[in-house]
């Protein structure tokens, strides 16, 4: 009877664990999520189209309000960074609902019974999301180019400009993942995300300069992480100081990841379905 030997062998060859195994597992799950996005282009088009539309509308309707003596192009140069980060932040709702549907359909249960790294499901979701975010950044920036937005600060800075919001938003999307694990319906994810995405993106140095806000809000506006990201991106694209803002953004990203990934993983392990 060779069965016990076989079992031992199987455990040996298939058991999860180890750094390389974990990375490999995460990569596979990420690939699956990216493939799903690729098969549903409508989702990407929808979640990219809306921020682009918002950007165009705000340029059209508020340029003359915010920069009365400037041109639409001037406001575009100012607005595109914020529109980009706003668009990305709103698409974290998609990351959340997609995960929710996975949890409900039993896909996640299947993955959990496989001998793959425990972190693969959630981390794969975040990384797959990051791939999509990068596509969105590129699209939004291209449209921004059409209305007059330009990189005025060199190629390397331009590259950092594209990656920084992806990094920050990926960190932020842990909060959506946390909510998805907790949520009882897909709408709950949406309803729980939107009320604080709105103030975060609107009450930031993005649509209007800090001086445009009433004094009592200015405090919030300056510490708002979205302000930091927007200003870092603005510096990277248009010139001016940005190192400080980039560092702030990175610190925020680390903090958000640390807090929400812990919460999400804990909630995920507690789930019984």
């Amino acid at each position, binding site marked *: 009877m060779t069965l016990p030997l076989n079992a031992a062998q199987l455990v040996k060859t298939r058991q999860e664990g180890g750094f390389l195994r974990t990375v490999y597992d995460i990569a596979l799950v990420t690939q699956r999520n990216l493939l799903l996005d690729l098969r549903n282009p*409508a989702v990407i088009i*929808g979640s990219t189209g809306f921020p682009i539309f*918002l950007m165009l509308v705000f340029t059209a*309707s508020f340029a003359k*309000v*915010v920069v009365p003596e400037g041109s639409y192009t001037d406001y575009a140069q100012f607005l595109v960074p914020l529109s980009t980060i706003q668009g990305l932040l709103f698409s974290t709702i998609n990351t959340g609902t997609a995960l929710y549907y996975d949890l409900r359909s039993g896909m996640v249960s299947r993955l959990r019974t496989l001998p793959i790294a425990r972190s693969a499901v959630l981390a794969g979701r975040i990384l797959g999301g990051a791939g999509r975010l990068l596509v969105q950044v590129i699209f939004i920036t291209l449209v921004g180019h059409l209305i007059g937005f330009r990189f005025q600060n060199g190629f390397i800075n331009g590259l950092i400009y594209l990656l920084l919001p992806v990094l920050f938003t990926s960190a932020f999307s842990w909060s959506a993942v946390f909510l998805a694990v907790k949520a009882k319906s897909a*709408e709950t994810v*949406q309803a729980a995300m939107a009320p604080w995405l709105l103030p975060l993106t*609107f009450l930031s140095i993005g649509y209007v300069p800090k001086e*445009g806000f009433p004094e009592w809000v200015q405090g919030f506006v300056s510490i708002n992480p979205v302000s930091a990201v927007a200003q870092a991106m603005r510096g990277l694209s248009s010139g001016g100081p940005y190192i400080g803002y980039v560092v702030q953004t990175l610190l925020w990203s680390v903090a958000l990841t640390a807090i929400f990934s812990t919460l999400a993983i804990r909630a995920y392990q507690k789930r019984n379905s």
Partner: protein
Amino acid sequence: MTAMDLQARAKQLVKVRCEAGLSRAIADSFIIGQRNLIRLSRQPAVITGVLVFPIVFLTAFLLAFERSMSAQNIDYIQYLVPIITLQAMFFTAMNSASNLAGDIDTGMLQRCRAMPISRAAVLGGLLIAYLVRAIVTLAILLPVAYLYGFRFHAGVFSIIGYILLTLFFTTVAVTGYALLALGLKKPDLVQSLVIVPYAPFLLLSSGFSPAENFPTWLQPFVVIQPVSHVAAALRALADSEPLLVPLLWSVGWLIVLLSGFGFTAIWLYRRIS
């Protein structure tokens, strides 16, 4: 049962359960409306949608743009509340589309269609429930707006007029969105496309920013489209300014849209499978 008995019983049932007539249409609509309201009151996402969303939007826009707008001599709270009201009504209608698509998906609509109830009852019931929801939204939004400094300058009649015009607008929006749900049927598809009518009509309007602030080539659309007119009429009602022109335009638009949407919706409802 003998043949004669059967014939007589069939005749009697047909007579008692007959679905035609206006009073049946109204009675059936109210029953279905009541059912929709029970459902709405049990969806947590709806409660945030009704309570939180409009206020968050109002606050965010007010804080971000009030100063810049006052540079253009615009009292932004008076200017902004009408479009925030209409936006809340748009959200209401968007949610009605998701719920109707859900009913199509679960087979509830088919069940109703095979029952001896008025053909208008499903749409009527949808409308009744969402008008109630709209009234609740107004009852929350307007007092908050008052706290922020919004005033009705022409007394009780202007308040009543404001509410009636808003509800008429909601009726049109719900009917229009019902069309979307009946045409697309799949809830997730509806969910991702509800934004399509919302974006151009609400955002490319003179509701957030006067038409003169838009690029010249966009101004004709901004000026002519219905949301701009309704927002202008609501503003005129609150500010006690000349009302006739914007009101005529608004009502004209709404009647045209309602009859178009209404007939198409009933036609689609009859032939849906």
